[in-house]
């Protein structure tokens, strides 16, 4: 019984990792940009939600709804003013710039919010659970997982059912030919990063409500996000969810065997998948 419970908790934890990873996957899928500041952007989102909650005294979910357009705007401006300038054949400049951005964000947050660890309070929701007989599941982990599914369904709808999604895919395939269709790749990339920042805000909401955070925890979230994206196969959103679940289950199973193995087990699972399927579980057919 304990194992069913452990695996169920792991699957739900995978939802959180999928949320961390979905924004990263979206940006990489469209513009081949590996955003090393992704984890720090999630932490920035968490602080923004915390700020809105503490100033307006509102529910964190409402606060996240207010933070979303702000983060969209931040992502849009970041892409237009900074990242678009370094995108090109050479993958090194964007890596360096986002690495620098990561350091800037961490230090700015440290300056603004100190090194004290913080938490977004969600009231009774934090401890609420549902008894399903064999397992007892927390409401918060279930909400996280459901949100991950909603985010992935929504992103897939945008990708495959809208003109914007068509423009995303065309620009991802071939930006020069896309411009011959009247698409402005720089604008498409800015909107994509804006949407990724909305996903980041949702990830930040659950990060902030489920655990303590401080300005330095971004890079570790980036690693989980990276591993989920790579296990899933670069650019596949459902694959990202599967990747998140694999890491989540590995971590809870590892922790059940020995609490010290929790983090390590997730990384080992990542390496094992990489050994067996170097291109991930659901790679794109072309690249």
């Amino acid at each position, binding site marked *: 019984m304990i194992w069913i419970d452990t695996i169920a908790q792991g699957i739900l934890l995978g939802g959180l990792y999928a949320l961390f990873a979905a924004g990263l996957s979206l940006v990489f899928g469209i513009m081949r940009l590996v955003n090393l500041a992704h984890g720090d952007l999630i932490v920035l989102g968490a602080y923004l939600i915390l700020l809105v909650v503490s100033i307006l005294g509102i529910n964190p979910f409402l606060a996240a709804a207010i933070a979303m357009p702000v983060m969209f705007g931040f992502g849009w401006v970041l892409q237009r003013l900074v990242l678009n300038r370094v995108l090109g054949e050479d993958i090194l400049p964007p890596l360096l710039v986002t690495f620098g951005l990561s350091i800037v964000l961490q230090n700015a947050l440290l300056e603004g919010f100190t090194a004290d660890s913080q938490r977004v309070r969600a009231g009774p929701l934090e401890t609420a659970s549902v008894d399903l007989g064999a397992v007892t599941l927390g409401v918060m982990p279930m909400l996280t997982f459901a949100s991950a599914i909603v985010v992935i369904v929504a992103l897939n709808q945008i990708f495959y059912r809208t003109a914007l999604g068509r423009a995303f*895919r065309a620009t991802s395939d071939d930006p020069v030919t896309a411009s011959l269709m009247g698409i402005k790749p720089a604008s498409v990339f800015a909107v994509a990063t804006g949407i990724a920042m909305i996903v980041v805000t949702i990830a930040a909401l659950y990060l902030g409500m489920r655990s303590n955070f401080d300005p330095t925890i971004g890079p570790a979230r980036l690693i989980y996000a990276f591993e989920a994206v790579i296990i899933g196969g670069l650019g596949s959103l459902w694959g990202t969810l599967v990747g998140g679940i694999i890491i989540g289950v590995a971590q809870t199973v590892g922790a059940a065997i020995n609490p010290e193995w929790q983090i390590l087990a997730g990384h080992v699972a990542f390496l094992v998948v990489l050994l067996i399927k170097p291109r991930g579980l659901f790679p794109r057919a072309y690249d």
Partner: protein
Amino acid sequence: MSLLATHDLTAGYGDFQALFGVDIALDEGETIAIIGANGAGKTTLMRSIAGVLRNAPQMVTFEGRQVGALPADEIVGLGIAMVPEGRKLFPSLSVEENLLIGAHGRSGNGYWSLQRIYDLFPILKEKRRVPGTSLSGGQQQMVAIGRALISNPRVLLCDEISLGLAPVVIRDIYAALPQIQEAGAAVIVVEQDIGQAMKVADRVHCMMEGRVTLSGAPSDLSRDAIHNAYFGAAA
């Protein structure tokens, strides 16, 4: 006044200059052909007009307006669409999506709609759900042409549309040209197949090493003159 013209157009890639003072003009309803060997600068000329390569503003004029410095996404909005060399369909888009994306840059209505493209190339309707790049070369070329037409261009630039295709397929594709012309587009075709170019064009320009070496109506150009302009050999 010509619909579209290049004026002393020079263009290149970095230090490599590919065009040296090219002057061509296209009138309303006209079809011109650009012929020449590999490396003559034909594709560079198309890319310069389409805005993929940016030039000085005055080097390309469209309806009297200087457009040489505009980027490709604005050029297509003005009404100049290109069928690029090698077709360049988007692999992650279905046939229908490849066609629809061509309408992205232009909002105005015109003759060409998705249905009219399917009427022109019926096979595409049957295959509308499959990935564009899974089609045969000739069918991919039909998608590339439809994708350009759906923006309802005033000028259609066709870069090497017969390259790598079987003669029977080339014939089918060129059979669509009269309807495209009737719908109101002036056309520039870049061709290595001189016979094909002579058949469809009102005027032919032959290029060699980045310059126009011969121009005229097909009926006025002798075989020897074309041979000389094409290969640069003495008559």
